[in-house]
């Protein structure tokens, strides 16, 4: 049976992980390669590396980093952050990334989704959506790391993007992100039930029960989290045991 996926996310700035601290098992938690390998060993199903480096010049080191990660890690990984052109995608895939994720650039020019899917295959194109539920109770798409609101509904954008060829959607609820109060179950389920591609839920996972809820009520195919794994508030082996015991299909 196809399992639900647990995905740690590593934010990378200038080649270092931003949040990774304080792991006794590894020498340098700021090193994305070591931290990624640690998570792979712990049973993570995939990894996401999100480059939040501010300047284009420093991003050039990203492809070198991706190459090192690909040499070391024996599970699939996605790379996102500032990807705009076929050349960007090609360099990352050639260096061993399995998938790339796009966000703002795809919203501003949706044709890139079509071009990426045609050139590299839908299976490697992940659309990241930063979503926020407003006072009118509608979920809107936000851009530029959540700093810029649009008038586009999340459901509309997700549908359009799937039609253009994205293979997966990484949905982050800005309302829930950082709260540790649980994932956004309603919008996640809404996308999961209406779209033919897998949905990766992100934002709000704070304990094991939250992951159970997002896989059942939220209909998510995968769940992503960062700081709760980095700060060891939730250990991946314990989380996977918990879910498996409760009947969720999980790779142990």
């Amino acid at each position: 049976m196809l399992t639900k996926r647990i995905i740690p996310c590593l934010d990378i700035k200038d080649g270092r992980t931003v949040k990774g601290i304080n792991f006794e098992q590894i020498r340098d938690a700021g090193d994305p390669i070591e931290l990624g390998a640690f998570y792979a060993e712990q049973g993570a199903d995939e990894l996401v590396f999100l480059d939040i480096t501010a300047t284009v010049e420093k991003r050039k080191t990203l492809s070198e980093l991706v190459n090192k990660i690909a040499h070391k890690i024996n599970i699939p990984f996605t790379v996102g952050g500032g990807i705009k052109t076929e050349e960007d995608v090609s360099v990352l895939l050639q260096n061993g990334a399995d998938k790339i994720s796009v966000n703002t650039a795809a919203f501003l020019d949706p044709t890139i989704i079509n071009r990426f899917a045609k050139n590299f295959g839908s299976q490697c194109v992940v659309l990241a959506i930063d979503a926020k539920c407003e006072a009118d109770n509608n979920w809107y798409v936000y851009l530029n790391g959540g700093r810029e609101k649009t008038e586009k509904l999340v459901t509309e954008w997700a549908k359009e993007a799937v039609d253009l060829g994205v293979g997966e959607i990484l949905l982050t609820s800005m309302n829930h992100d950082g709260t540790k109060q649980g994932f956004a179950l309603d919008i996640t389920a809404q996308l999961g039930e209406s779209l033919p591609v897998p949905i990766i839920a992100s934002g709000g996972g704070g304990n094991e029960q939250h992951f159970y809820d997002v896989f059942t009520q939220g209909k998510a195919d995968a769940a992503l989290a960062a700081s709760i794994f980095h700060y060891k508030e939730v250990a991946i082996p314990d989380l996977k045991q918990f879910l498996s015991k409760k009947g969720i299909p999980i790779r142990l």
Partner: protein
Amino acid sequence: MNLVIIQYNAGNIQSVLYALERLGVQATVTDNLETIQAADKVIFPGVGEASTAMHYLQDRGLDKVIKNLQQPVFGICLGMQLMCAYSEENDTACLGIFEEQVKLFKPTDATIKVPQIGWNTIGNLKSNLFKGVKEESYTYFVHGYYAALGQHTIGTTNYVQPYSCALHKDNFYGVQFHPEKSAKEGEQIIQNFLNIS
């Protein structure tokens, strides 16, 4: 050992190369017909679309070379599908090494996503390729088309219905999943292929 990875217009070749490096094995990535024919073992990887890949192989004469290889050959994902007789993906006649047909997943309800992306179990394992690999081990899959069950099936996975996650005929082996991305179990399977004599 002279190990060759066939280069063509399909992704994930680097990932296979790196997985081999982790096992301490060097491989040559090439589309040169003579180099491929002279190899001790050949890996035929791939992520992509069947008709585009077949045209590429035919244009370079790789189709005939692959079919006639006598040494152990290991197809991965699209590589395995191209070794089958036919793919529904853009109505493509393939290499015909395995008689099995490649079909599109037709979900029985809206919760089943196509392509299948993620970790699924492999069972009914019948080959040296799976030596030391437990029944119902998890491996990583990314595919919208599947090879039907048939006489060459040496492993079965369930998604929508049971299908061939691995095929074997004579010197030809194929797996639908990505051993190069399937953690320790995947590394064991690659090592087993390298051990086949």
